[in-house]
């Protein structure tokens, strides 16, 4: 029997096997995400169309309000719907991933009190679910671009990098909120507030070029500004320019949020089952 692995748990000591465990449970990532996707569209008539309806309606409203009524400028000759939708995609991805990850631990409280697995899997799989929605909604952007005959150029290859930034931002913020949510349910009310507020302070309905230059750096303290600018830069072709300082600032903040989120999550994780 002695060839079996020995595991020792001691009070107050962090275990060395955590990352190994995470690897061992990698299939659970997939299964939890798969469950959430299956469950979401069961007993619905429109099914997966729901992943399309929300961003499209928001895009229409924003195009009318910001483009037609407020007559804000687009970037170059880019049609306003494409300008809005290229920001809508990362924004919806972030907002969904962040709120689902933030609520994920509480939603799975029953599992947490009855089964062991690295808890990091739960918010991570919430981000994966939102990523699937993101992929589905991307189809609309492709459609819009074909409709308006707008062609992206070589900068498109940078897009996965910006997707990764959005995922990291949502995961990092989601880790913070989900861990805090376990003990203080107040944070459940903070999530919709952040999402709603964030939509207004992020350049979703308008181009960030409308922000005066001297405010541009402060504006980039909002990591979503950097991500959205990056999306537009990669998608909209030559019309869009990228402010490198702003991007670096956004990126730096995302790294800080993600690392601190991981640290906080890991340090509180062991107590989840006690307080949830």
């Amino acid at each position: 029997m002695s060839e079996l692995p020995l595991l020792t748990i001691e009070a107050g000591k962090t275990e060395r096997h955590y990352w190994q465990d995470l690897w061992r449970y990698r299939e659970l990532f997939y299964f939890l995400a798969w469950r959430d996707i299956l469950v979401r569209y069961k007993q619905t008539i429109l099914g997966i169309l729901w992943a399309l309806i929300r961003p499209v309606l928001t895009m229409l409203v924003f195009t009318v309000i910001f483009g037609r009524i407020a007559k804000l400028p687009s970037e170059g000759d880019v049609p306003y719907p494409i300008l809005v939708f290229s920001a809508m995609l990362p924004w919806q991805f972030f907002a969904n991933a962040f709120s689902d990850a933030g609520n994920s631990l509480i939603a799975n409280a029953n599992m947490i009190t009855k089964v062991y697995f690295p808890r990091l899997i739960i918010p991570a799989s919430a981000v994966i679910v939102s990523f699937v929605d993101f992929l589905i909604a991307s189809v609309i952007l492709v459609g819009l671009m074909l409709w308006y005959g707008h062609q992206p150029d070589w900068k498109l290859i940078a897009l996965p990098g910006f997707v990764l930034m959005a995922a990291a931002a949502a995961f990092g913020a989601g880790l913070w909120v989900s861990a805090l949510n376990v003990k203080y349910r107040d944070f459940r009310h903070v999530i919709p507030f952040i999402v709603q507020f964030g939509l207004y302070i992020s350049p979703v309905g308008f181009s960030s070029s409308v922000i005066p230059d001297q405010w541009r750096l402060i504006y980039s303290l909002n990591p979503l500004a950097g991500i959205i600018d990056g999306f537009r830069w990669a998608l909209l072709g030559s019309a869009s320019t990228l402010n490198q300082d702003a991007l670096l600032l956004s990126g730096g903040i995302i790294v800080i949020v993600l690392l601190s989120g991981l640290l906080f999550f890991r340090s509180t994780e062991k107590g989840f089952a006690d307080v949830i």
Partner: protein
Amino acid sequence: MPSSDAMTAAIVAEGLSKKYLIAHQREQADLSLRDALARGVGQCLKAPFRPWLKGDPESGREEFWALSEVGFEIRPGERVGIVGRNGAGKSTLLKILSRIVEPTRGRFSVRGRVASLLEVGTGVHGELTGRENIYLNGALLGMRKAEIRRKFDEIVQFAEVERFLDTPVKRYSSGMYVRLAFSVAAHLEPDILIVDEVLAVGDISFQKKCLEKMESVTGGGRTLLFVSHNMSTVASLCSRSIFLANGRVALDGPTDAVINEYFAFLDNACDLSTRTDRKGTGEVRVTRISLRSEAGAPLNAVAPGQTVDICLAFSNRSPQPLRGIRSMITVHNRQGQPIFSQHNQLSGTDYGALPEQGEFICRIPRLPLNSAFYKLSYTISGFGDSTLYDQLADAIEFKVAGTGFFPNARAPSNSYGQTLVDGYWRLGEPADQGNYAEPVISS
């Protein structure tokens, strides 16, 4: 250095302790809405900083050691039962060994893959089909996808749900649900299997099947840690048992000896003089509760259909004579749902002036409860002035087991209902429209 025994043991626990902070309910309710608001606002302001505030003297929290200094060693292949009353620390111990919660002090080592089944059906999702749930549940219990696929047919067969594999689980009967969930867990091949009282659900034949499966699972050198309130199950499955009382190991040894000790302990457990969770003025206090048969013999367990006296011994310390006393008992099941209540005014009994010592005795003819564990709460109050003298929730737990309610047959299993009622069946004529009696409308 660990001893040579510890080198080969499947589980070694040393000084395991778990502390919880329990918040006390305030004695007085909020005096006014203003007070309530003021306190609420104060707490809201403090809430974000609470993790950084060291103590919180206001909240009146008390330390509670659910487990203290528990140590043992279990050899590979051993089957060990864990017994004890509710709140003795059994579940806490299993949760620590399953790595769900962290011990406050102490350490433990486990050798090999651990699978724990603390609840049947954790993570089973009602919207998903049986097939989907088998995969999800398996993954949750730590099985690999390939492993689940390999055992899929076996799992389905054991659960007897072949025909409903593609039906959402929410449409399953509770029996099917339990069978499916247990079946997945039963086909894990862990080196150490930790099982909490999960077999209390399901019908008897399936329970038997599960026990057999567990025995065969543990046949090949696998270790089993098993919690149950059912002593006959423990006795048949485990050769060694650990008896936990108040978070400590009271006895660790051969199952027979442990069970005897446990029953002796239960006999003394009805003494309520040390309970601190009472409410009320305390002028009248119930000091002991016992269950007695019609003939007055104390009962360890009551049989369904047996006539039982529930006796609440009290002492009355009130300086002035107390009249119009209401003694009420409420029986809950383990899940906390109330099953029935009784009080003396229902039978029109007035005790008159209450003596200094005595017993409130409630006779229940033909106890209509199915076999299970029940909890008894009582309230002693005034009838006219509604003064609360003494109240204790979950004062004792008692067991109903055996047969006898139906003279000719065994009672339906617990999953069909916790109360037993008489019924008389007959065969009637085929009913057509004409056979129905006209409804009688009384004028």
